[in-house]
């Protein structure tokens, strides 16, 4: 492998990794807040992609400008899912983990059905956008513009998330609720409201990722599956509940995937990512940065 090709592979892995981190961080955030794994996470991503696609098809506005709308829609949807589904799943006295898994699984399948009902199973794609299929040349390394745009959005989102968690009252309420759910009620924090906003925030982050992904990826009802598995791997690798862990693990997964695709038969790149994840959790059962 030459030096140029090394940097080329490194750069594309890094860009994809930042996007994986953005896809996964909402899942990790929700888990950290309330110990619930959303098994419809991939379908949240799919919904954001269709939201962007649908708005683009209706208004012909450039998809890059529609990303805030997709993010806002997913925020509302996430809060709604908490109020309508997850809140009830958390009340289960028996088989609590099972109820959460299958309530959100069922929701995911239902969402696939709804997407298929309105958009048919056909593969869709956004055919024209500012970022289209262009690439830029940075010191001999070619970077695809949509991925570069996504990576910038991801970095900005992580900075904003860090500021939100550390500097605002909402962030403090989130942190306090994840520390001790009983005690926060005593100081006047409405637990349900914090959870609903937490779900909104988690969904908004995957909405942001879906908006970016819609620009350069095919959109179909089952698109969430492959990304969801990567998101679970990223979250488990980084440590459930750890925002920084999601960022680091996302980048690791992106890099491993990119290098594996070059060094091994292409079909083996997913196996490389999964094997790395297994090796890490078998040595450190709560992931690289997990608190458990």
């Amino acid at each position, binding site marked *: 492998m030459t030096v140029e090709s090394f940097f080329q592979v490194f750069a594309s892995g890094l860009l994809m990794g930042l996007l994986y981190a953005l896809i996964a961080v909402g899942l990790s955030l929700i*888990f950290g807040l309330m110990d619930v794994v959303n098994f419809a996470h991939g379908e949240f991503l799919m919904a954001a992609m269709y939201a962007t696609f649908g708005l683009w098809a209706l208004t012909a506005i450039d998809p890059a400008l529609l990303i805030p709308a997709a993010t806002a829609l997913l925020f509302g949807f996430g809060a709604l899912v908490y109020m309508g589904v997850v809140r009830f799943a958390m009340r289960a006295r028996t088989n609590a983990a099972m109820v959460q898994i299958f309530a959100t699984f069922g*929701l995911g399948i239902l969402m*696939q059905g709804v997407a*298929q009902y309105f958009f048919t199973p056909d593969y869709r794609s956004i055919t024209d956008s500012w970022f289209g299929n262009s690439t830029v040349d940075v010191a001999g390394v070619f970077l695809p513009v949509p991925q570069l745009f996504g990576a910038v959005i991801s970095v900005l989102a992580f900075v904003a998330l860090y500021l939100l968690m550390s500097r605002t009252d909402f962030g403090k309420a989130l942190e306090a609720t994840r520390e001790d759910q009983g005690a926060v009620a005593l100081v006047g924090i409405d637990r349900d409201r914090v959870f609903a906003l937490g779900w909104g925030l988690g969904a908004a982050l995957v909405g942001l990722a879906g908006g970016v992904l819609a620009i350069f990826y095919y959109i179909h009802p089952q698109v969430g599956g492959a990304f969801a598995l990567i998101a679970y791997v990223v979250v488990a690798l980084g440590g459930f509940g750890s925002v920084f862990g999601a960022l680091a693990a996302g980048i690791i997964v992106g890099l491993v995937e990119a290098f594996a695709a070059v060094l091994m038969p292409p*079909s083996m790149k997913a196996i490389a990512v999964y094997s790395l994840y297994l090796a890490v959790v078998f040595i450190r059962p709560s992931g690289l940065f997990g608190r458990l």
Partner: protein
Amino acid sequence: MSDATATLAVTAAPTPSSKDDGARRRQVLILVAVCAVIALLLFAVTDVYLQNVLILTLMYAALSQSWNILGGYCGQISLGHALYFGVGAYTTSYLFAGYGILPWFGLVLGGVLSALLALVLGYFCFRLKGHYFAIATLVIAEIGLLLVHNSDTLGGALGIQWPFAADGWATMQFARNKLPYIYLALALFVVTWVATYVIEGSRWGFWWRAIKDDSQAAESLGVEVFRSKMAAAGVSAFFTAVGGAFYAAFVAYIDPDSVMSFRFSLLFCLPAVLGGIGTLWGPAVGALILIPVTELTRSYLGGSGSGLDLIIYGGLIMIVALARPEGVLSLFGGAGKGSAR
């Protein structure tokens, strides 16, 4: 609460009380009654499509019962049992198509290989807890699927076509008449049910339930947690692979996605979850609801590609999970309740 259960596990394990004996004998009578009803159904159901639904319902009842041994009784939620199903299906198909070895041998060998594989994987996975465990099983099954996809020996993405064989019990091939498959599926169900029944009353059964309720309390009271989980994984994987071997013989053509995709892992947990997890009859009740509904909606609505079948399927899972966390079986109080906790 959990301490009390764990104490019960240790003290009550060797000698179940006589009251339990009565409740357990009633379970056997229910099994005999169920088999009698199915035997009568054989005369009523002559339509090939309905016979198919019956076969699949019995098969998923058996497979979900196998999953229930690890997921329900021992509380280790596996989302990767399609791997063991695939091992059974592929072992049987490979030996029959490649070497003409009768599927009965493949069925047993596949079960043993699968149990060994479960022990190896369990050695690593059982150090993971909760969601970490569930996601690891999901990922391992996905690796298995990708490996089979890339294996030329196992036919890669094309899979394995069973060679034509004359109808007969030796080869498990019945092209003209579905009836023998109903017998086989029923036998599969009865065998997994009896295995679960025996284990439930044994020391292992008590240990597993103690681990499910509170593994730390169980451990402190002398339950061998790790060995118990390994035993549950081995038994569960064995029967799942036997189910896979049956399915391969039934469809006579397998490819990676048609036996090892995540869809199957889900189909093994769902009946148990719907019917009542960790109960003797939960998987059967769940399969009786889920499989006909999904088969019927798929044939009447799925062909249109409108997505309505997925909406009904997903909605059903969600509603039952939310409305009856203990499963549908808990609506009927008596039957199977004694074995529930």
